[in-house]
């Protein structure tokens, strides 16, 4: 087969490659191209008209900004949590480590319901928040909290292996050369963690941007205020406004693709750096 670069005695390339490509095309590429065709049918001006509608602009803005805020919070929190879970030994560590994946394993609708229940003004946490004048449920704060919840495992799980792989000898060298702990962390350890941080941040952001289930219950979905883009897509569909829904979806898909490409380039870049460091 002309496609193959290096020969091997193993059989089954044609069969497995064929199945993979067919299945990928039917399940993923064909439906996605239906969206692109719909968008190109609308043309630039049509597309622009649907996504510059004030309600749509507000929802896209909220989705982006809330996802960005949540990813930034996750970056800092996730790094601290990953550091603690990798470097320190304490009772209950394994349980907490396993619990990190909870937002990933919990169906998003259930997460949304649970967060709404505890953050509502009469909820377990909402009561106390109300006392200090913070309202979380049915506000933008609530949206960000839900997105932090949903993105947390992505940051922690990306940072953990990177922290575990840190070269202890470099750290020792920095310490024996008189660097303080904070200095060592900032000047020696943090630069080595940058690729993992950027990847984790991007994953958390991408996940938060398209999130639906965990947000829809807590946000209250007030148009122009707490309505995120994915909720608006469903709203448009319910009014049979397929063009409007496709317009928002195209913008979101374009950003998602840009994210995916960034992550892939980053991982390749990090891989090259690692190989160079190893050589």
């Amino acid at each position, binding site marked *: 087969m002309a496609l193959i670069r290096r020969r091997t005695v193993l*059989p089954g390339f044609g069969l497995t490659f064929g199945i993979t490509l067919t299945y990928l095309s039917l399940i993923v590429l064909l439906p996605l191209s239906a969206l692109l065709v719909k968008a190109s049918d609308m043309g630039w001006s049509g597309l622009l008209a649907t996504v510059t509608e004030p309600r749509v602009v507000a929802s896209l803005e909220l989705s982006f900004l809330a996802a960005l805020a949540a990813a930034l919070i996750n970056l800092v929190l996730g790094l601290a949590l990953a550091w603690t879970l990798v470097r320190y030994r304490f009772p209950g560590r394994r349980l907490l480590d*396993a619990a990190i994946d909870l937002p990933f394993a919990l169906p998003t609708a259930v997460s949304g319901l649970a967060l709404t229940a505890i953050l509502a003004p009469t909820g377990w946490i909402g009561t106390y928040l109300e006392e200090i004048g913070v309202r979380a449920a049915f506000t933008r704060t609530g949206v960000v909290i839900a997105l932090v919840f949903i993105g947390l495992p992505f940051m922690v799980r990306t940072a953990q292996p990177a922290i575990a792989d840190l070269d202890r000898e470099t750290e020792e060298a920095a310490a024996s050369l008189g660097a303080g702990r904070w200095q060592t962390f900032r000047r020696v350890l943090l630069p080595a963690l940058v690729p993992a941080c950027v990847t984790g941040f991007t994953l958390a952001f991408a996940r938060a941007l398209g999130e639906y289930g965990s947000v829809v219950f807590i946000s209250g979905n007030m148009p122009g205020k707490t309505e995120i883009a994915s909720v608006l897509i469903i709203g448009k569909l319910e009014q049979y406004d397929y063009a409007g829904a496709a317009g928002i979806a195209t913008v979101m898909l374009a950003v998602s693709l840009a994210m995916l490409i960034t992550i892939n380039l980053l991982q390749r870049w990090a891989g090259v750096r690692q190989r160079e460091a190893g050589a």
Partner: protein
Amino acid sequence: MSRGGAGRARRTRPGVRAPGEPRWVRLSLIGFTALFLGVVLLLPLASIFSEALAGGWRACAASFSDPAARSAIRLTVTVAAIAVPANLAFGVCAAWAIARFDFRGKSLLTALIDLPLAVSPVVSGLVYVLLFGLQGWLGPWLARHDVQIIFAVPGIVLATIFVTFPYVARELIPVMEEQGREQEEAARLLGAGGWQILWRVTLPRVKWALLHGVVLCNARAMGEFGAVSVVSGHVRGKTNTLPLHVEILYNEYNTAAAFAVASSLALLALVTLALKTWVERRQDRAREEAQRPADDDPGRTAGTGEELVYVHHA
């Protein structure tokens, strides 16, 4: 991995400042981690069970005897029973092609497999509506032949397959790439056929990664909400999965029943987590065992390497 070695080493060598945060930093980080994860992760989980059981066990159980709930359970199980095996078979095929052969466009193919992870769940549902819906590409043709995909079970199955598409493949590919193809090639040269190699050599070596992928795939398939919500049409007793049933109950202010049904999904998540942790532990052990013969080089073993550093310093 430190395995507590750094702490002990510090005490034995008071002259050298070994790396490690001051005690108060360590303790406050641990305290923060425990508090944060307790409040942010465990409290919501606890609230589901607490709300579900607020009206007592009997009320909670009654929520499941409702015909709509039963049909939702049946549909959820059916959808997972189709989506998971389909993606499992695909995952094995894709991993075999990608991890065992070098071909042009391999990295593009790998990236495309991950694509559904980057697509919003709602957009995942929408693309199927645009493809099979009445206003879509194939909609009019399907309607003429009396085939309904959108707002029916096939659409739910397809959307679920889409969102769980990469789960098995992305677990298998890195593991199989790491293992290399020498064992399969040896089996081939000894006269084994393709199926024989797959069943006797490949699958036993990747069984934990495979199980890991299946567990995650199943959890997502049963819990998917956004994508399924778009294509389902919410026909009670017909096209509602468990998560959709929860939403309907909640929107009807039937909070107790909503949380009761949600608690069954939360239980599923806990089982998933337990299974996942167990599989990961077995996976680590299997990997350590596989690497042991190669660990004659002392510089490469984490434990002894660290001790050597300290000896060297002393």
